[in-house]
């Protein structure tokens, strides 16, 4: 190739990157956004949960729960605080890392203390999720906490169990993924049913 040809091709390269940036980097995302906002506005905006005009979170992003009257989600490795939605992260601890072992051990004894008389703690309750924002726990992990939540709220175990049951999301299309319970939605419905009982309507 002559120097002239190389120069010529360089100009084409620069033009090409400009054209493709406009087409793929601006026009394409803009078109997808426009269509997304029209066809699936709720999802495109982050599946936000709005309550009396106040945004309480996203149905897809887990929140940190610690009181006895709420179901607890999975441990979260985000920093500086758990479930920091602005900075997703897993623990990235290897399976042989003593830090992982002691963290799991601590979580197990914590659950044993707060849910006395129960054995076989579901593994998702003592291991951190990949995103640190996992909104779900397994149905097993939800049922595991029914007794504690019912006791703390002065509800019958059967009533709480029934609520959990109604919040189980089955495998999509019958075989995709794993059955799960969205912790935030479950807890919000607990609060709502308590409020209804007191005659307050959300």
């Amino acid at each position, binding site marked *: 190739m002559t120097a002239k040809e190389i120069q010529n091709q360089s100009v084409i390269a620069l033009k090409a990157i400009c*054209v493709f940036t406009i087409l793929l980097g601006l026009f394409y995302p803009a078109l997808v956004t426009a269509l*997304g906002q029209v066809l699936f506005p709720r999802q495109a905006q982050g599946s936000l949960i709005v309550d009396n005009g106040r945004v309480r979170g996203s149905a897809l992003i887990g929140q*940190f729960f610690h009181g006895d009257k709420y179901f607890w989600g999975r441990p979260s490795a985000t920093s500086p605080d758990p479930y920091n939605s602005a900075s997703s992260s897993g623990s990235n601890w290897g399976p042989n890392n003593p830090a992982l072992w002691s963290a799991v051990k601590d979580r197990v004894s914590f659950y044993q203390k707060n849910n006395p008389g129960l054995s076989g703690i579901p593994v998702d309750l003592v291991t951190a999720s990949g995103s640190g924002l996992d909104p779900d726990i397994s149905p097993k992990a939800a049922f595991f906490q029914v007794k504690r939540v019912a006791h703390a709220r002065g509800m019958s175990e059967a009533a709480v169990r029934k609520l959990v049951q109604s919040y189980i999301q089955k495998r999509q299309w019958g075989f995709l993924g794993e059955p799960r319970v969205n912790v935030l939605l479950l807890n919000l419905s607990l609060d709502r049913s308590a409020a209804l009982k007191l005659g307050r309507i959300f």
Partner: protein
Amino acid sequence: MTINDWIQIGAYLGVLLVLVKPLGLYMAKIFEGEWPGSRVSSLVERPIYRLFGVDDSSEMNWKSYAVSMLLFNFSGFLFVYALERFQFYLPLNPQKFAGVPPDLAFNTAVSFMTNTNWQAYGGETTMSYLTQMAALTTQNFVSAASGMAVLIALIRGITRKQTEWLGNFWVDLTRGVLYILLPLSFLLALALISQGVIQNFSPYRKASIVEPFKGDAGKTVQDELIPMGPAASQIAIKQLGTNGGGFFNANSAHPFENPTPLSNFLEALSIPLIAAALCYTFGVMVKDVKQGWALLAAMFFIFVPLLLIAVHSERAGNPAFASLGVDQAAGNMEGKEVRFGAANSALWGTVTTATSNGSVNSMHDSFMPLGGFVTLFMMQLGEVVFGGVGCGLYGMLAFVFVAVFVAGLMVGRTPEYLGKKIESFEMQMASVVILIMPAIVLGSTAIAVSCQIGKSAVSNPGPHGFSQILYAFTSMGNNNGSAFAGLNADNPFYNILGGWVMLLSRFWVKIPVLAMAGSLARKKIIPSGPGTLRTSSTLFIGLLIGVVLIVGVLSFVPALALGPIAEYLGMARI
């Protein structure tokens, strides 16, 4: 493994196989320029070439093709680097992110230009919307299309005879983008939004959380900041183009990138889709579809056993927790999301490393030793099991030439493939293509483990710490982009060394492949006779698998023994 795991894996592989033929055929027609819609589409294409100043009827020899590609990729690099550095002064930056520091900007620009998408940053804390779209999304498209273009040039080298001409880079690039990547991404993006992937230009939303708590700093945490942005449009192409770079730090483990099992299925399916279908494209273009199926079969026979090892390993759980009274029926859940579970996470981990995609829906760093081994080894095979869009198949064809050569030596005949004699120049180039990667990966790993700055980035003790470094350079050296993400890789040492590793492994492979294409195109086509090795036979498929595995094993067993294998043996002790 449960019955449902088998069903999910079966459905996944089944749908993938069903799509190979229609998509492969479509792509062949596109690149041969003779699909039914080509007259209408030229109304779109022509003005683009006129804008570029390209004569689309002219063809290039291998050198011009390589030079055009390099110049285009280099312009892309400059563009990405500039956007990152100046993003603070540019629009669509609602979070007011500062300019990206030079070493990280260099690393990221190289990473996206080479189709690697190694990320030493967290998307939601570093990049403005404009950078994500105009810089990164654009490169996701064009780096994938460049890979496809090189493959198509190589196929033309095989099918044409006694010519210099391999096609026009600008035309191949544009067609790959316009007719393959763009429509597929568009459809996938909309499907993903329906599942809950976000797509907007809003600033991050503040939400008052349900149960405030006392945070790390001693203050009560009452709010959360929910990240926003045009995610779906980027995620669609990151999967289809085997790029893999996440919009968010947690990549496709993040609920906004991958909210449901269905979105997971679609994204995981998109990862090997084009690369697998290109095998059929190859078959159509060489006018013998059996040749394409043979290559795909070799890929599947390597992929499936390793996949099953990974799923089994993640399903089995961590023996260290057995004595604690933990119910591990769900498997090893550290670093995994409940909605996907162990099986889907292991499936994704295997397919994202088999292709050079590198997006993750779970943290590979927390995989069990054998699961981690599979992800590492998949990359170390040279990204030829599906591999990247285009580059996977041209890598596999280099292995085919070696296999043909080995077979030729055995029977004392001049090796040939599809009527083309494979001679010393092709063998030299194929050897360069195959051997450059282990040299770069092992060399850079050796540098990192022999200096303090390399070792101090490690976040896990023991053999796993070594695996973190080996994984980083294996990933960058194969343009994969996934990570054992605990490694603290955002520092000048990893950013700059890693940047060079990505550059060398991409272009020291692409250029010899084009040289090979040029040399093959010049040759005559010899009619096949009774003594010709049938390269679509089971025997040859077996030989090809053997060559791929032997090269991978010989290159990497010592390193693997120090990493995941030592870790596995240590685990077995418990």
